[in-house]
Structures are given as structure tokens and as C-alpha cells.
């Protein structure tokens, strides 16, 4: 703010810093991006802005009337080219809580070849004049592709094994609320990292928020060179859990594997599954899981229901984080100059 000082300032008592009076209300913080395609390009400030905003929106979920008129008149299309229950419901709920108009499009199992179908759909969206498109697709880069064909703001709800930014944001919110900080925390991500967009987005978010990340899983499910993302890699569960604050178990995505990467689910559970003995051995360990859990594979059933498992907090936070992202992205349209992506 550039103040102009005039003689009228003489009415002030001496010693009063007049800047304090002249200061206009501070410019609200804003995202530097126009879309939410992934967290690789988001900086710490932007991630924290989404988390702070999400905490305020979360309060709405506990009101008598769980709906605010904030996004009235904004049209959101949910494009789910890949089956999803939780993420789709969470996005839909977030949109409804904000009073946006929503349309759902799902073409899971469509026989049309993926690339053509996406482009056709994009052109249809453009013709329908929607403001925001939420997209889930089995191909990495699908969300980015969509930004090139439509004018709408795009939110990535998972693209192939690339990114799933809102999942990582809800995980970050959950962790930061449990520990009241993120800096210096030790987070271990367990399981199938190769096929996991959740892991990738989480690594970006957690590293930017100052947490230490350890990856643990069968070597066949660990991408080569992943250490370059600034993470520690191990294939021994105990090594990953020692000194660990949060263990994030990934779902074994059987549907995404053409050939099995490990001999059997039972063996996977024996080597990488979290059991009650781990909960006893590490009395401060918190358990997270993006859901849906394969009980008895990644986590034993008692671990899922354990008081130190924050899996259901993650679900609530998912709605809040998506409300925040929609609010921060679906806003002003006049000033497009700041857009990135």
C-alpha cells in the first residue's frame, strides 16, 4: 500500500503511526493457479491457503443447515471416466454444500476409445457453458488435456497414476490438525507406490509442508528413481514405522495390475500390513488410508477401527478441502492475467 501523506494528518495525536489508519484492508491471499491439476506446481503458501480455507468450510458441515450460498449460479460438471464412489460423492457433496449447480457425467466402461471420448465430452462441456469441470480419468494428463479444450476451471480428481491433488490436501489437513504442525513430522507411505497417484500427490504436498516422507513396499511396486523426489525408500515395514508419526497405507489396486506384483495378498499382509502388534509397539503411531480399505490386506480389521486410525476424519476433511478448492478457484473471472498452468 502506498500512502500519501497530507497536512490533514496533523489532526493525529503525535506518536500515532498514521500508516495504521491509512492502511487499507490487506489484499486477501489467492492461489496463483487457475486450475488444480496437481500439487507438483503448487507452493507451500497455496497449499496452506487451501487448508486454512478448508477449516472454515468444515465448520459449515456441523451447522443445522449444512449449506452456504457461496457458489450460487456457478455450474460444475463432474466428469468421471473411471469408476469412483468416495471421491465422486465427496465432490458432489462439496458442490451442493456450496449451492453450486451440478451435472454428473460418468462413462466408466464406455466402449468409445478414451482419447476421442474425452475430446468429444470437452466440446460438449464448452457448448454447455459450465464454469468448473471436475475430472477423473484413467490416463495421466487427462485433466491437463481438458484445460486445453475448455474455458472452464479444471479440478483433477485423479488422472491415471499421475496425481490426485484433493486427496493429498485432505491428508495434509488431517495430519496438520492431529499434530498442529507439519514441519518435521515423519510420514510413511506404505504399499503400491508405482500405481498410486495418491502417493505422488502426497509426496509433493508433504515435502512442501516440511514433513519427512518414507516410502515402503515391495520393490516391484516401488518406482525406480523415486528417491529423487526427496523421500527415503525401504522395503522393511519396521524400518518405515520406527520413529514414524503417521503411516499412510495405500490400497492395493488389484484392478490396476495386469500381472500380480507379489505372490499373494496373504503374503503382502504378512510383510506390509499393519497389525495390532504394530499399534502396541508404536504407541503414538496414527493410521491413515485413502479408502476403501481392503481389511486384512493393508490394514488388519482392528487397526481400521482403532482410535488412532483417522480414516473417517479424512473423509470429513475431504468434503471441506474440496469446498475450499472450489471456492478459491471458481471465483473471479475478469482477471485472467495471473493464470498459470
Amino acid at each position, binding site marked *: *500500500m*502506498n*500512502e*500519501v*501523506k*497530507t497536512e*490533514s*494528518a496533523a*489532526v*493525529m*495525536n503525535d506518536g*500515532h*503511526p*498514521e500508516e*495504521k*489508519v*491509512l492502511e*487499507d484492508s490487506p*489484499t*486477501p*491471499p*489467492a492461489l496463483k493457479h487457475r486450475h488444480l491439476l496437481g500439487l507438483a506446481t503448487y507452493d507451500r503458501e497455496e497449499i496452506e491457503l487451501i487448508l486454512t*480455507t478448508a*477449516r*472454515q*468450510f468444515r*465448520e*459449515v458441515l456441523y*451447522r*443445522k*443447515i449444512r*449449506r*452456504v*450460498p*457461496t*457458489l*450460487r*449460479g*456457478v455450474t460444475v460438471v463432474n466428469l468421471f471416466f473411471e469408476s469412483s464412489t468416495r471421491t465422486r460423492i465427496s465432490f458432489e457433496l462439496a458442490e451442493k454444500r456450496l449451492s453450486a449447480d451440478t451435472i454428473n457425467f460418468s462413462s466408466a466402461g464406455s466402449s468409445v476409445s478414451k482419447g476421442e471420448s474425452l475430446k468429444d465430452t470437452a466440446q460438449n462441456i464448452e457448448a454447455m457453458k459450465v464454469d468448473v469441470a471436475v475430472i477423473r480419468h484413467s490416463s495421466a494428463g487427462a485433466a491437463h488435456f481438458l484445460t486445453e479444450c475448455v474455458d472452464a476451471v479444471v479440478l483433477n480428481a485423479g488422472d491415471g497414476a499421475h496425481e490426485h491433488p484433493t486427496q493429498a490436501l485432505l491428508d495434509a489437513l488431517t495430519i496438520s490438525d492431529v499434530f498442529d504442525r507439519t514441519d518435521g513430522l515423519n510420514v510413511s507411505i506404505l504399499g503400491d507406490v508405482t500405481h498410486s497417484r495418491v502417493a505422488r500427490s502426497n509426496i509433493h504436498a508433504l515435502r512442501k509442508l516440511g514433513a519427512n516422507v518414507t516410502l515402503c513396499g515391495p520393490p516391484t511396486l516401488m518406482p525406480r528413481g523415486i528417491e529423487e523426489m526427496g523421500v527415503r525408500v525401504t522395503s522393511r515395514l519396521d524400518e518405515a514405522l520406527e520413529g514414524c508419526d503417521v503411516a499412510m497405507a495405500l490400497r492395493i489396486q488389484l484392478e490396476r495390475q495386469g500381472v500380480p506384483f507379489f505372490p499373494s495378498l496373504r503374503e503382502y499382509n504378512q510383510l506390509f500390513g499393519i497389525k495390532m502388534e504394530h499399534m502396541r509397539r508404536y504407541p503414538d503411531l496414527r493410521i491413515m488410508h485413502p479408502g476403501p480399505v481392503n481389511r486384512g490386506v493393508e490394514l488388519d480389521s482392528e487397526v481400521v477401527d482403532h482410535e488412532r486410525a483417522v480414516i473417517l476424519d479424512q473423509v470429513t476433511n475431504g468434503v471441506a478441502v474440496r469446498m475450499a478448492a472450489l*471456492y*478459491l478457484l*471458481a*471465483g*473471479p*473471472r*475478469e*482477471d485472467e492475467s495471473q493464470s498459470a498452468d
Partner: protein
Amino acid sequence: MDSSFSIKAQLMDEGDLSRTLDRMARQIIELVESEAGASTAYGLIGMQTRGVFVARRLRERIKRFVDIDIPVGVLDATMYRDDFRIRLRQPEIQATDIPFDVTERHLVLVDDVLYTGRTIRAALDALMDIGRPASVNCLVVVDRGLQELPIKADIVGRVVPTIPGEEVRVRLSETDDVEGVWLVERVGQASNR
């Protein structure tokens, strides 16, 4: 946003502000005591940001004057604003924290400045979604006129008729290091409010 301001006059100093708050606290007490007995539940709702500090100060005064403790809730009405997508930047959403049930309660909505009335409109809508208050009164430190909606304050610290281009700045030591009320005017090009 790129325009700046100069001070036109100081409207209240620390002492004026303190006396005004004393008077407004007594007006709230009058309101409370005119109701059917002390059993009627009251609540102060401070509007983010400075209304919260005003509400807390009023609570302290009321406690001191008559030993009645009226709880304070914090309200941010940003989600209910009518200028979404008109402003260049999204306004920051601050906390809403009302630690009591507003239903059947008599509320006093507290803000620093009453101007267009749009913030109060948004706040009323927000309150109705949170519960069903028995009544809502509106208290402001300064009513600067130029209301764009049929909204009036019930308890007013000072009425200051202003013209477009002028603004009223209430500054409180809790957040500003300085204390008092000033009339400022815009110099340079006008910006969108």
C-alpha cells in the same frame, strides 16, 4: 485497490471510544433488563474482524456494570456475500465460532462500521442457517450512512454522514496498535469496493 487514502479528521480518540462503548454497553443492559426477567438468554455476535473485539469489550463492560455475563460468538459472513465473482480476488474466509445455541436467543450483532448494509444482510442470512434466534439487534460503532439496503442499526456509537470516496476507519488496539476512529478520503483513482 491501487488508490491510497489521506486522513480527513479524527472522529474519536481513545477516550471518546471508551465512553461510547460504555454508553452502548448500558444500552444493551437496558435491552436485557426490559425483557421478561433475567432468564431470557442473550448473546453477542461479533462480526469478523473488528466487530469481534468490540463485542468482547462490551461483554467486559456489561459484566463490570451489572454482573451479567453475555456470551460472545464470532461470525464471518463471507460465504454469504453477494459479490462473489465480482471482486477481483476471493475474500478470505475467517472463522465462525458461536459457542452457544442461537435458537430462541436474543442476539446483538456487533460490527465496527455500518455502510451499505450488505454485510449485515449476509450476517442475518448466516445466522438463520445456524439457528432461529428469538430476535436480532444490530450495534455499530459508527453508522456512516449510504445504506443500499433497508437495514438500520439499533444501537449506534456515532452517526457520521459520509460521501462516496470517504471511509471510516475504526482502529482498535487489539489488532491495530492504535486506538480511535478516523475519517479518511481517497486520493488518486477510485477502486472497486
